[in-house]
């Protein structure tokens, strides 16, 4: 614990204190009749307007981990890391229509989670269980990664110890977060998101205008990056995409865009909104964050020009590439502004971590606790259970970061992205058609999950000294179907999640065709076609927060 940066720490702590007060006060903000109901605790009363939703969803999707990992990827690999921009640009046109249908049907039936919806659409607790488990398992490492983002900041400020003491500031930050999330539910991150996003906008805009002027202009920055990548023997990096990674770039962007709103926490922000128009306006306005993310990515190249050396994590003994952008800030900005920027990233970790833990808690409560453990739970008992579950989820994430190598969370997050994509047919395609048979969807999920996992397992990363889970891209020539390799000799790379999704769909179609031929029953659909178009003010909407 040497070299503590006191100015930074003071500014960081003051802003952290501000959001802590807001987090606790949020319980009374736009309060409903009771907080003892998931509609209120878990969805903020389902009444957020356009502005709140913009800050909330923006704060939720563009996480602290994104803010440190994307520039770090650009720093290490170059153009490939820029996939974050097409990912978040094509995202909104793709999800625009399906999200409206999801909101309407959920509002009519009072669904809180994607698994609730699947339960209603297919009348199958088995399929809903798979969707819920996938959501929880994919979200958990994502929460842990927010801690990685927060730790990158703390480490740069000088809190770089090993052992339990080294993690004390992280632990403290998370205890505070856990307490106000427990008390205020979704209202806490919704209110804090205003601060987080404002800070982030100020920091990034300052960085992209101030730093290039200081570093000799954009031309010099890009030329510096090019020189660095040209000097490495690796064909995978470069200022432009190479021969073999263009398909990977496109499929990673598309796969990530298809996956994002399948994550339960992303949907939570949508379901908390007041009406369809709020969602539509947000689909138009949210790309402002994408612009920000693209600029942020370029900070990775600025770190190359300034010769940033990532800080060595004293707990693991390896350089922590996630400190790339934080070290850059510390080198280039005055101390007070660095503290401000670190607060932006630190608070940027709290907002998504809170929403993710709420979403995971909702899934646990609605689709496992109430479904299997306590079928007669009242809404008040559900809310109690969800509050407790949110605590368990958060402390599980802290324990994961403290006791297990953080690299493991990063691997799990990689797997989580491939996994959550496998719920696309059951959660998203089913919004449009019930053509797929229930058991076809289950078989497809099993196939996509299994194959995706096997492919990820077999990817080595020699540079990081890893034999397994070394990345998310596979060469087409490595694709083998029971020994048959259809793309022999083709070295083009593709995103594993995309391949697994295609396998999932093929299996789902085949099983569906067979079961339709045999006339096997396809579950009970409790939704009606007009449910998918209901809007605010509609008489059929389920009243919010009634017991």
């Amino acid at each position, binding site marked *: 614990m040497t070299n503590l940066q006191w100015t930074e720490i003071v500014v960081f702590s003051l802003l952290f204190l501000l959001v802590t007060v807001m987090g606790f006060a949020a319980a009374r903000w736009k309060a409903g009749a009771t907080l003892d109901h998931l509609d209120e605790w878990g969805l903020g009363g389902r009444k957020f307007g356009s502005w709140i939703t913009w800050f909330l969803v923006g704060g939720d999707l563009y996480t602290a981990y994104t803010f440190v990992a994307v520039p770090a990827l650009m720093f290490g690999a170059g*153009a490939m890391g*820029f996939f974050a*921009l*097409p990912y978040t*640009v*094509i995202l*909104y*046109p*793709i999800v*625009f*229509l*399906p999200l409206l249908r999801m909101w309407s049907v959920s509002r009519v039936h009072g669904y809180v989670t994607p698994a609730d919806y699947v339960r209603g659409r297919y*009348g*199958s607790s088995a399929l809903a269980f798979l969707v819920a488990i996938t959501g929880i398992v994919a979200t958990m490492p994502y929460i842990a990664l927010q801690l990685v983002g927060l730790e990158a900041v703390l480490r740069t400020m000088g809190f770089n110890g090993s052992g339990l003491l080294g993690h004390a500031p992280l632990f403290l930050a998370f205890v505070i977060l856990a307490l106000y999330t427990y008390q205020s539910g979704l209202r806490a991150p919704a209110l804090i998101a205003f601060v987080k996003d404002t800070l982030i906008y100020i920091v990034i805009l300052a960085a992209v205008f101030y730093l290039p002027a200081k570093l000799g*202009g*954009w*031309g*010099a*920055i*890009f030329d510096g990056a090019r020189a660095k990548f040209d000097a490495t023997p690796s064909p995978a990096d470069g*200022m*432009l*995409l190479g021969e073999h990674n*263009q398909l990977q*770039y*496109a499929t990673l*962007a*598309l796969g990530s865009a*298809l996956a994002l709103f399948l994550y339960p926490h992303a949907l939570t922000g949508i379901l908390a909104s007041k009406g369809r128009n709020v969602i*539509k*306006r947000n*689909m*138009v*306005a949210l*790309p402002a964050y*994408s*612009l920000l993310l*693209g600029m942020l990515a370029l900070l990775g190249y600025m770190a190359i020009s300034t010769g940033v050396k990532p800080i060595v994590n004293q707990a693991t003994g390896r350089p922590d590439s996630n400190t790339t952008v934080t070290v850059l800030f510390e080198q280039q900005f005055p101390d007070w502004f660095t503290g401000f920027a670190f607060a932006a990233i630190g608070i940027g970790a709290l907002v998504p971590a809170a929403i993710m833990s709420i979403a995971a808690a909702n899934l646990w409560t609605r689709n496992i606790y109430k479904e299997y453990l306590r079928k007669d739970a009242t809404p008040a008992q559900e809310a109690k259970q969800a509050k407790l579950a949110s605590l368990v989820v958060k402390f599980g994430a802290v324990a994961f970061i403290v006791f297990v190598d953080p690299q493991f969370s990063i691997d799990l997050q990689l797997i989580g992205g491939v996994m959550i994509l496998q719920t*696309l*047919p059951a959660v*998203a*395609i089913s*919004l*449009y*058609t*019930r*053509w797929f048979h*229930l058991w076809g969807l289950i078989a497809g999920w099993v196939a996509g999950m299994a194959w995706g996992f096997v492919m990820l397992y077999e990817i080595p990363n020699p540079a990081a000294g890893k034999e397994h889970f070394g990345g998310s891209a596979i060469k087409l020539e490595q694709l083998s179907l029971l020994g048959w390799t259809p793309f022999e000799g083709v070295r083009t790379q593709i995103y594993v999640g995309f391949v697994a999704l295609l396998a999932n*769909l093929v299996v789902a179609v085949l099983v569906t065709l067979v079961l339709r031929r045999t006339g096997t*029953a*396809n*579950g*009970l*659909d409790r939704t*009606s*076609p*007009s*449910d*998918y*178009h209901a809007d605010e003010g509609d008489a059929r909407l389920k009243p919010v927060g009634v017991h």
Partner: protein
Amino acid sequence: MSAGPPPTNRPNGLRWNAWNLLLLVPLLMLVTPLFNRDEPRLFGVPFFYWFQFLFVPLGVICVGLVYLKTRAEPVRTDKPDRLALDDLDAGEQDGGPGR
């Protein structure tokens, strides 16, 4: 897993509007050969980067137009909404009232 009423006998509840096709335009961003080059640069930024940045306002315009143009449209329920994720809608498009 009880048997439900056969879904083919229901209206499909899908609404189609030609403006929705605009939502496909941003997908051009996935065609990397279009922009995977250094020159021409803009303020020193290579083409690869600034061209993709241009897609942010383009995406906003496309989604914004769809929002504005589909707000008060009379509803047709007789055509499937082909803009489901990845055009994967192979749904029940036959039978049912509303056509």
